[in-house]
């Protein structure tokens, strides 16, 4: 079946602009994660959605970052007033509920803030 998809694959924006990144998880996966990966760095957890529970936003680096998940499926990560340090690859992952903790990742969105 289809894997996790993300769009756009690349985004170049000017400092100060807002951007929206989209994630389509695997159908039936109730858990959804956003990560950020900077050059040469590991994956940095941003936010986690599980079913209808309140999201775990503990990894969001500032209040310029927000995310929502509509209808328990598609998720959008929004970065307001982008800064150059926001430049990174943003990865989305989904996971099925239950005992398996295996995460399925999308290809990522490469964000460049000029």
């Amino acid at each position, binding site marked *: 079946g289809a894997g996790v998809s993300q769009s756009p694959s690349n985004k170049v924006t000017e400092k100060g602009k807002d951007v929206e990144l989209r994630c389509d998880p695997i159908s039936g996966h109730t858990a959804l*994660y956003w990560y950020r990966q900077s050059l040469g760095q590991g994956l940095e*957890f941003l936010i986690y959605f599980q079913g209808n529970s309140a999201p775990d936003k503990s990894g969001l680096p500032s209040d310029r970052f927000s995310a929502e998940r509509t209808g328990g499926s598609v998720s959008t990560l929004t970065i307001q007033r982008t800064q150059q340090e926001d430049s990174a690859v943003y990865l989305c992952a989904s996971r099925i509920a239950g005992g398996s903790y295996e995460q399925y*990742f999308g290809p990522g969105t490469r964000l460049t803030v000029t």
Partner: protein
Amino acid sequence: SQKIEQNSEALNIQEGKTATLTCNYTNYSPAYLQWYRQDPGRGPVFLLLIRENEKEKRKERLKVTFDTTLKQSLFHITASQPADSATYLCALGALNTGFQKLVFGTGTRLLVSP
């Protein structure tokens, strides 16, 4: 402070040899540990999960060990092939950080020469 450390230097080995990658952690109470493979420009792909009460897991040419006393996991690829060249990430699901979330190491790049 909490840390997950992987050797940042690339590991270069010859085809047919066994590659061994190390993941060390401090100040986490692990529930499980995972290993992922990441190729350039792609999202990580799940390889293996080992739980805190397990010592060893195998899957085809892959073997993972987990020593919670040493706070270390070793990841072995036997009979390595050039196609195994990639970055390998360890990721911890820890009780003291919310075991539904993963904390990732920075990854070790493996290069297998023919």
